[in-house]
């Protein structure tokens, strides 16, 4: 494996990790505030569909992005309404969101475009195009460090950079602001927050809406950045892998980034090396390489991660004592 191949794998890793990072941070906001959310998948799917559909209809990827974010935040608001205002079961509400998104996108897509649930292929301004950094070509000629700049860092769509920047922003928001302190407190001990005169419901609604916003970015990236159009069920379990990454990361932003990059890396390896021959061991079959991300998820969650303690009030609707 030469140096340039490693760079290319890492490049692929960044592309594949971006939707996971968005979804994982989305889950982080929601769960830190005490609202479990297994509807990440559904919100991403809805956003993927509406961003691609509106981008296809208007020819503008930015309008598409707005539509995707709106769709995702509406679903987030429904989840919030069910689990905060009506104090319903958060898992059931999340499952319902997933069902709703999966069925709704296929149905609306079929009625709208008559292409069997997919949107037309996007082109030109209808999708996010890679951004080349300035002087990428000339800097790329510098040995060793050059390719890192020109191949690895340059040439992604804007949403990949947004995903990476969201990580420090999330850390700052959660750990350095008053809003963040309250948000974490409401996930650990809502009674104390309530006693302090801060509205538990309002805080949780804000967290859930941020979750919707981030899921929306992730979904829009899938349909308009990574692929060029929506296909049925295109999220393919990414929302659930993001949830696994969230537990793996113990609900911390920096670890969430590492976990998502790891999953992205494994996927990139599996795509590039379908058959790896190791001296003395023989050939590792392609099936094993493709299953590796999932096997590792189980191994990591079962043993390596240590004790992952979720926010204490997570999953519990808050009922004011009367």
């Amino acid at each position, binding site marked *: 494996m030469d140096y340039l191949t490693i760079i*290319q794998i890492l490049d*692929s890793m960044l592309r594949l990790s971006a939707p996971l990072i968005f979804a994982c941070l989305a889950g982080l906001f929601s769960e830190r505030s005490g609202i479990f959310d297994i509807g990440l998948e559904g919100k991403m799917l809805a956003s993927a569909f509406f961003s691609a559909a509106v981008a296809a209809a208007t020819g503008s990827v930015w309008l598409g992005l707005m539509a995707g974010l709106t769709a995702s935040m509406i679903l987030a608001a429904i989840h919030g309404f069910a689990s905060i205002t009506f104090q319903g079961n958060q898992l059931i509400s999340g499952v319902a969101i997933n069902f709703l998104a999966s069925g709704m996108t296929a149905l609306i897509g079929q009625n709208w475009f008559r292409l069997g649930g997919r949107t037309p292929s996007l082109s030109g301004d209808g999708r996010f195009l890679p951004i080349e950094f300035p002087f990428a070509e000339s800097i790329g000629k510098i040995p060793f460090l050059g390719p890192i700049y020109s191949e690895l860092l340059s040439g992604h769509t804007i949403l990949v950079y947004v995903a990476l920047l969201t990580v420090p922003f999330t850390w700052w928001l959660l750990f350095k602001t008053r809003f963040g302190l309250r948000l974490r407190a409401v996930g650990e001990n809502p009674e104390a927050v309530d006693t302090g005169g801060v509205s538990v419901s309002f805080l949780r609604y804000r967290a859930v809406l941020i979750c919707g916003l981030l899921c929306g970015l992730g979904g829009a990236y899938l349909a308009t950045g990574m692929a060029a159009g929506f296909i049925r069920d295109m999220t*393919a379990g990414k929302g659930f892998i993001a949830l696994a990454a969230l537990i793996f990361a113990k609900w911390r932003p920096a670890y969430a980034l590492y976990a998502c990059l790891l999953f992205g890396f494994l996927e990139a390896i599996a795509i590039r090396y379908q058959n790896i021959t190791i001296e003395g061991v023989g050939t590792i079959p392609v099936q094993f390489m*493709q299953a590796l991300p999932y096997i590792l998820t189980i191994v990591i969650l079962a043993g390596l991660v240590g004790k992952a303690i979720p926010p204490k009030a997570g999953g519990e609707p808050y009922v004011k004592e009367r």
Partner: protein
Amino acid sequence: MKIIKGTFASLLALLFMGANLFAEPAIVFDIGGKFDKSFNESAWNGAEKWKSETGGSYREIEIQSEAQREQALRRLAEGGSNPIVMTGFAFGSVLDNVAPDFPDTNFAIIDFVVDQPNVKSIVFKEHEGSYLVGLIAGMTTASNTVGFVGGMDIPLIRRFGCGYVQGVKAANPDINVIQNMTGNDPSAWNDPVKGGELTKAQIASGADVVYHAAGGTGVGVLQAAADAGILGIGVDANQNHLHPGSVLTSMLKRVDVAVYNSFSEGMDLNTTIVVLGLKEDGVGYALDENNQALISAEVLEMVEATKASIINGDTVVHDYTTDDSCPAS
């Protein structure tokens, strides 16, 4: 989720079936869906052509999961459809069980041989068509590296790949061919994101022509090729128009003709094994206004000569499925 969808679909199907007792033909599409711009869409085009020419009507089911294969066939047969055409090798084992239960109904299966008295099996010599597009790719590549992206890893798709490699090597034995498969289950037919990533990886390794045999996944392959400014090669249907100027050619597999003929034969379906190759115009390569500029007169001449030589038997293209191995790689 899928189960609920499936039950609902079959209930609906049942409702519609009961109302109609005339022998209409029917078609069942595989999981890629009838708008995969490739295999299933080609089948659908054939059915639509029959419909517009004869004014008849037909029934169709797009299955969503493995479990629906048998359900769909039984519902259609019970509803009196005749003949019932299904697209895809994956129906093979199911049809083998279903066909004896409906001796008065004729079935036609594409891409698989089912040995039952009431089944017409239509198979294509994809290796011959793939050989020709491989030859074009081999004569076009400037980097001496070309790629192949298959859908689900099955012998049928290996047959595409093997024919392609033989064609490439016929143009120049030193050309390196990178081969990848998308996955091991039917979802590999409908994963453009992964198709795009595989293509990007091949491009990074130097490929400047990439051929796909991956149904809906191929949409992502051709997209990635067009984005990177290299050439893609389409499959099954003529995909030259998807990215004009960036699709070198398409390996045509006339699934549409197979469906059209089966529908036309109607109740008198010729229940034998039909093998369609270059000779029968069952496979070929696409040349139209979108790729004219990409294929030089020299290449065209060579390809036509090779085509004639395959048809008269002078050039023999090895079929992967006969011995599960490929002489070239």
